[in-house]
């Protein structure tokens, strides 16, 4: 059995073979035990693939979620607190203090380069990443725009909840693995 025979047997199994190819494969599996065995292994593999993908839960309704999600993201990044970014290349420091279940107590200072407005999201992610990496739950920020960011780690996932500027109405969720960030402003 050649490599091309194997390709044809795959196509045959997928109902993607031409009439000539079907005839060829039918003859092949009738006369060649190795080809028949290969066909049966492919069937077995397909059964396993089907099982794997059939287990996926497709009930999640993304449509209902998308409106509020998109709006909240859009609204958030239009807030004045991010207007500072027009002055590029300004350094600001972060002093930190915190007590949290999993995060250690620490007093650290960081300096970040302020980015331009289109990179606000990236900047916020950068700060959150640094806080997670350093295991800092509360960051007091020496900046006219930010006052502080508090994060609340979630043991059950790789995501954290966070609060901006000490405002309990401005909370968000950030998942570092996927760059997922979602902030809600409750007026």
């Amino acid at each position: 059995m050649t490599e091309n025979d194997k390709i044809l047997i795959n196509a045959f199994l997928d109902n993607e073979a031409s009439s000539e190819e079907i005839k060829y494969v039918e003859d092949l599996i009738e006369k060649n035990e190795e080809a028949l065995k290969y066909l049966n292994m492919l069937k077995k593999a397909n059964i396993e693939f089907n099982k794997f993908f059939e287990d996926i839960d497709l009930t999640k309704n993304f449509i209902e979620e998308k409106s509020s999600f998109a709006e909240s993201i859009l609204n958030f990044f239009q807030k004045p607190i991010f207007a500072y970014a027009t002055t590029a290349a300004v350094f600001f420091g972060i002093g930190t203090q915190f007590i949290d279940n999993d995060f250690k107590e620490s007093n650290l200072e960081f300096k970040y380069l302020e980015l331009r407005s289109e990179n606000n999201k990236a900047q916020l992610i950068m700060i959150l990443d640094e806080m997670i990496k350093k295991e800092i739950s509360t960051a007091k920020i020496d900046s006219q725009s930010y006052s502080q960011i508090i994060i609340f780690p979630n043991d059950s996932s790789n995501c954290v909840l966070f609060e901006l500027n000490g405002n309990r109405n401005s909370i968000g969720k950030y998942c570092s693995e996927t760059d997922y960030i979602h902030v809600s402003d409750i007026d």
Partner: protein
Amino acid sequence: MSNFESMLFSDSLKIKMMNLAMSKTFNQHDAEDLVQQTYLKALERQDQFKGDNIDPWVITILKNLFIDSKRKKREALLGDDTPELTSNDESHEILVERDKNKCLKSLSANERELIALKQTNNYQEISDDLGIKTGTLRQQLARAREKFIKCMGWEND
């Protein structure tokens, strides 16, 4: 709902995206997050979409988002806890772990994509989605399945 959103939120595309996401993350929650992000990104960039077939465009977004997340984390969501099979340790792995998930993970990302898309699409549709020729698709799909079969150890049964 606009025409764009009708295409974007079609059931067939949702299933395709979930299958693809699962083939990459092997985790329902992560797959849903990836699909959610893909929807958001597609909505943000809808003015960039041109054409009648939205599927290839959305699939590209999903794949790029997954690559970005991997690059950022510096560890794959998939497979990092499971060393890639090599020719040296393959026989040992097969004897010890005839495990479907591990064997799926041993396939390349491209091979898993093909397997995932094959669940709901014919060769022509997959070729269109991925921008490859059907002849190439035939070869790659056959190679992916054979790799899986070898990993499962069925050749020796």
